[in-house]
């Protein structure tokens, strides 16, 4: 098994309260030692991290790998290759594949493909309901036995309150969270962007913030009654964040994630880009007031983690009328640079807090083994240049798709190397 000495870097590991210059020795794929200066053992490879930051491998708990069924958008192999390039050593992938990941055969298929590719750990999320139809529970226990770590009908909300109640009860047998794509579809209607001044100006049909808020409110009431474990995917409004705070104050087991695009862009972007379909996602880009509240949530600890909602779509699907385009954008290869530039360099977050949001936090939400460099833990490591400039070039992505609103953005901070179980998976020689 792989051994490696990463030396000369600044180690930031919020799980142990570490932030300072130190060397990291990996033996047999696990963290063996962290010390001020470690002499190179005989025969061990080295990685010079002088001037770089060394952290626990980043974890994205909300990605769409599109396999099986939509391999023209992404595969487990290309998606995890993109993850490694972006500094991520683990991803949790959503169940809206074709067919839906609602049975253990698909859990096993995803894990097999991930093993074959070898770029990142993949944690499959199974569907809550059979076929994501929102009618009856999927075989959650079978999927968990095969390796699923949570359930979600993401892409669609669980509209049926009784089904949601049962999911919150049943998942407690397996100790896994129910992840909700919180959206009341009757309020969304045919909406394609956030309802507000900009939808009014552009004449596009709006999706009100209340579509998310009423669902989060309903689910928190059900969480209270069931004592279940609830997680809000891609939380996007100020009021939903307040509801999460309220739920916590009542002792509920509720967590939430926020996506980088909701923290950086607003609904005005649709106008600024002349109706670019790369500004079309669900939930939609919200108001600047929402955006500011979400950033406050990162700072004050209400937000548990940042997750990208990496949603690959083919150029032919996105290059259509705004009304017709599918919802979603990529995230794996832009998240780290965006967060370093917009939050750390902008002085909004400390570097340890950002690492917590991208690594220790997401591991805690799903109860995953990573997110730490404690001795004995798997040697999943991200190494990045805090100050190096990078220009996002979608054409160079490892992902199969190119749908990002950040193409051409120049940012400060970039991933340099990614180590998985002591083995360098990015950049490849």
């Amino acid at each position, binding site marked *: 098994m792989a051994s490696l000495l990463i030396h000369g870097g600044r180690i930031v590991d919020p799980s142990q309260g570490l932030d300072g210059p130190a060397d990291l020795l990996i033996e047999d794929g696990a963290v063996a030692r962290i010390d001020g200066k470690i002499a190179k053992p005989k025969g061990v490879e080295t990685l010079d991290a002088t001037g770089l930051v060394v952290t626990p491998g980043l974890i994205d708990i909300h990605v769409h790998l599109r396999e099986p069924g939509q391999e023209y958008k992404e595969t487990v192999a290309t998606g995890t290759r993109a993850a490694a390039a972006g500094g991520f050593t683990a991803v949790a992938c959503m169940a809206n594949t074709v067919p839906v990941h609602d049975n253990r055969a698909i859990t096993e298929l995803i894990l097999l493909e991930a093993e074959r590719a070898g770029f990142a750990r993949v944690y499959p999320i199974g569907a809550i309901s059979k076929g994501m139809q929102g009618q009856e529970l999927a075989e959650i226990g079978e999927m968990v036995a095969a390796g699923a770590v949570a359930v979600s009908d993401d892409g669609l909300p669980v509209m049926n309150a009784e089904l949601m109640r049962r999911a919150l009860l049943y998942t407690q047998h397996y100790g896994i969270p129910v992840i909700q794509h919180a959206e009341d579809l009757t309020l969304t*209607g*045919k909406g394609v962007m956030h*309802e*507000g*001044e900009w*939808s*009014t*100006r*552009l*004449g*596009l*049909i*709006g999706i*009100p913030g209340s579509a998310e808020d009423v669902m989060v409110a309903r689910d928190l009431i059900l969480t209270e009654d069931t004592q279940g474990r609830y997680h809000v995917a891609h939380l996007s409004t100020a009021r939903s964040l307040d509801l999460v705070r309220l739920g916590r104050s009542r002792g509920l087991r509720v967590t939430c994630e926020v996506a980088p695009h909701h923290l950086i862009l607003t609904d005005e972007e649709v106008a600024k880009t*002349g*109706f670019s379909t790369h500004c079309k996602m669900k939930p939609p880009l919200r108001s600047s007031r929402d955006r500011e509240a979400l950033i406050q949530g990162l700072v004050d600890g209400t937000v548990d983690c940042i997750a990208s909602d990496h949603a690959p779509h083919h150029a*032919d699907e996105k*290059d*259509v*009328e*705004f*009304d*017709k385009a599918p919802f979603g954008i990529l995230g794996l290869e832009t998240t780290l640079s965006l967060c370093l530039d917009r939050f750390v360099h902008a002085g909004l977050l400390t570097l340890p807090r950002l690492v917590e949001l991208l690594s220790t936090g997401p591991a805690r939400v799903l109860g995953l083994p990573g997110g730490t460099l404690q001795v004995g833990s798997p040697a999943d490591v991200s190494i990045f240049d805090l100050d190096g400039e990078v220009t996002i070039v979608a054409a160079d992505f490892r992902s199969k798709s190119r749908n990002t609103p950040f193409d051409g953005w120049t940012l400060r901070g970039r991933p340099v190397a990614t180590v998985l179980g002591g083995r360098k998976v990015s950049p490849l020689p």
Partner: protein
Amino acid sequence: MTSETIRWTRKDLLGIAELSPAEIGLLLDTAESFSEIGERPIKKVPTLRGKTVINLFFEASTRTRSSFEIAEKRLSADNINFSTSGSALEKGESLIDTALNLQAMAPDLVVIRHGSPGVPHMLARRLQAGVINAGDGAHEHPTQALLDAFTIRRHKGRLAGLRVAILGDIEHSRVVRSNIHLLTKMGATVVVGGARTLMPTAVEKLGVEVAYSLEDALRGADVVMMLRIQLERQGKMSFPSAKEYFRLFGLTRERLKLAQDDAIVMHPGPMNRGVEIASDVADGSRSVILEQVTHGVSVRMAVLYLLSGVTASEES
């Protein structure tokens, strides 16, 4: 700045929102100079001879399409019509492929009407031809706003300082958005009025006053612009019935008395008589509805002319 001091530099006319008051003035003044052609016995000038204009209508629109066609013919352009029925679009061709095919025919101008906001912008990015937005969903309908302004100017001699009430289905109207931009840029006061279920979120951010009763909106208005009502939109009922709508928001002669004595009544058409407007108002002495149609041709001639880039020297 007067219109004489500026030149038209845009390739496309996508909306009013991005235009300056000087550009709007130039368009309106140019329309004035074309309006006389419509009164001649031979209503044709050679201005756009040898230029090709494609009218691309993805939504049925007899009125706007005919108006553009007449404007094109009066300017001697070669024009051709594409509409959705029977075209490649119904056979599943993507909009981009349609655009590329059009480009291959090397038109000089493309007039487009589409149900989705932003489609003219998408085409404009890909076509070398100038693109004229003839209505994109509920977004903009710039030539309608220009012809409305032209009509108002003819009657009031100015736009600045006027109080214009726009009434009806504000939420789904492209006409109202273009008119709000144009009138507020030119110094008029706009009040939008109508039912709460037909009022878009945050509309006041567009620089207008908002009234939720017809009476409040009409009080003191110099211009009363009615919009077509479609009670059922996007599968959602915004109003229980046409009868109930007319009771609250229909424009009657009695209600019109709240406006200025010399207020004019406008409607972009097609009208629902007895729903948003009573017939005796639509056909009454204050109505300028048919004049709007006449001026539409002059305004569209001006737009086609300015976008074609034909200069006076080329013309001769």
